C-alpha cells in the first residue's frame, strides 16, 4: 500500500508533550492554542505532511473549487483538525464544550431495548465527544487502533471509566472480533468507524461525493451477521467551544440476503456521511487517497 493510502492512526507527539499540553490547557483558553496552531503548527504541517495534497484534491475534485480556494480550504482543514486535537486534550484537562444533539431519541430508543446495537462513526468532526455525551445504561465498546500512544489511551481510559465505555483494540490475533461479538450478544453497544479500511482487505465500493470510494466491509458485516440495529453518530464542530451531534438510524432489510443487507447498510452509511460533509465540507480528516 502506498504511503498516502495508509495512515498510522496515532496522535502526534510523545507522552511528555501530551502532559504539558494538558497542563497548559487547564490554565489557558482553547482559543489561545487555536491561534498558535494556525500560525505556527499548520504552516509546518502543510510543508511536511503529504496529506496536504490529498486534501487539496478533495476540495478540487469533490467540491470543484478553484486552485486558490482549494488551497485556502486545505489550510482551514488543517487548522480545524488542529483545533479538534486541542479540544481532545482540553477534554482531558477537564474543559467542557456546549454540545447540541440532533436525533437523541434515535439513540435512546435503541438503548432502551435489550438487544445490542452498533454505532458507526467516521473520521470527520470530533467523534470522541460523543463518548462523553451519548450515555446510557448500556456499556459502549469502542473499537480503536491498538497502536495509539499510551498517554492518549491512559487519558481516554481515565475519562471513559466514568462513562461506562470500554475500548477494544484491533489486534492481529483477531481477538477483537470475539470481543465485539460478545459485547453485542450481551446487549451492549459497539462503536466503530466505517469510513476507513482496517484489519480486513474486504470492502464495498460505493459512489460517494461523485466518485468511487471503498468502504470497509467489516462494520457492515458485523451488524448483518447478528442482525442488530445500526445508527450513525457524527460530531461536528460548529464554533470554538460548540459541537453538534447528529444521530441517524441506518435502516436495512434484515430479511434480505446477507450480501444485499451489507450493500444496503453501506449505502445508508455513505449517504449519511455525504449529508454531513455537504454541511461541513472542511471537517474531513482522511488524509490519504480516498477515491479510486
Amino acid at each position, binding site marked *: 500500500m502506498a504511503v498516502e493510502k495508509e495512515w498510522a492512526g496515532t496522535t502526534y507527539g510523545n507522552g511528555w508533550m501530551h502532559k504539558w499540553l494538558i497542563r497548559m490547557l487547564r490554565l489557558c483558553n482553547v482559543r489561545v492554542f487555536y491561534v498558535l496552531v494556525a500560525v505556527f503548527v499548520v504552516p509546518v504541517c502543510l510543508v511536511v505532511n503529504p496529506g496536504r495534497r490529498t486534501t487539496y484534491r478533495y476540495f478540487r475534485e469533490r467540491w470543484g473549487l478553484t486552485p486558490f480556494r482549494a488551497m485556502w480550504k486545505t489550510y482551514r482543514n488543517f487548522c480545524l483538525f488542529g483545533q479538534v486535537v486541542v479540544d481532545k486534550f482540553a477534554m482531558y484537562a477537564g474543559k467542557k464544550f456546549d454540545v447540541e444533539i440532533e436525533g437523541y431519541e434515535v439513540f435512546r430508543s435503541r438503548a432502551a431495548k435489550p438487544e445490542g446495537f452498533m454505532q458507526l462513526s467516521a473520521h470527520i468532526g470530533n467523534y470522541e465527544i460523543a463518548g462523553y455525551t451519548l450515555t446510557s445504561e448500556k456499556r459502549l465498546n469502542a473499537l480503536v487502533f491498538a497502536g495509539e500512544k499510551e498517554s492518549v489511551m491512559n487519558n481516554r481510559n481515565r475519562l471513559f471509566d466514568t462513562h461506562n465505555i470500554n475500548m477494544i483494540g484491533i489486534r492481529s490475533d*483477531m481477538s*477483537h472480533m470475539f*470481543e465485539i*461479538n460478545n459485547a453485542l450478544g450481551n446487549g451492549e453497544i459497539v462503536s466503530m468507524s466505517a469510513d476507513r479500511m482496517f484489519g480486513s482487505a474486504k470492502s464495498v465500493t460505493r459512489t460517494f461525493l461523485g466518485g468511487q470510494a471503498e468502504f470497509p466491509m467489516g462494520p457492515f458485516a458485523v451488524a448483518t451477521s447478528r442482525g442488530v440495529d445500526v445508527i450513525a453518530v457524527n460530531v461536528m464542530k460548529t464554533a470554538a467551544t460548540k459541537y453538534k451531534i447528529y444521530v441517524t438510524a441506518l435502516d436495512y432489510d434484515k430479511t434480505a440476503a446477507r450480501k444485499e443487507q451489507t450493500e444496503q447498510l453501506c449505502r445508508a452509511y455513505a449517504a449519511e456521511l455525504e449529508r454531513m460533509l455537504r454541511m461541513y465540507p472542511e471537517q474531513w480528516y482522511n488524509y490519504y487517497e480516498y477515491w479510486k
Partner: protein
Amino acid sequence: MEELVEELKKEIIDVLNLEEVTPDDIDPAAPLFGEGLGLDSIDALELIVLLEKKYGIRLATPSDGKAIFKSVNTIAEYVQKNRKK
C-alpha cells in the same frame, strides 16, 4: 469426529460463501487464516457467529480464538468439547 469435520467444512463453505470450494478441497489440518483458505478477520467473525448459532458456543476468552480457529480440526475438537446444541 470425522462426521463433525465434514459438517464443519460444509458450514464454512456456506457461511463464507466460498462458491468455488468443495469440502474435499479443504485440508482439515491446514491453516484457515493467512495461508490455506486465506481467511481474514471478517471471516473469523462469521465463524464466531456460526459457533454461537449452530453449536451454542460463545468463547469466554477472546485470546483463545487464534488457537481454536487454526484449522478445521482444531475447531472440530473445540466444538466437540464445548457444544451446547
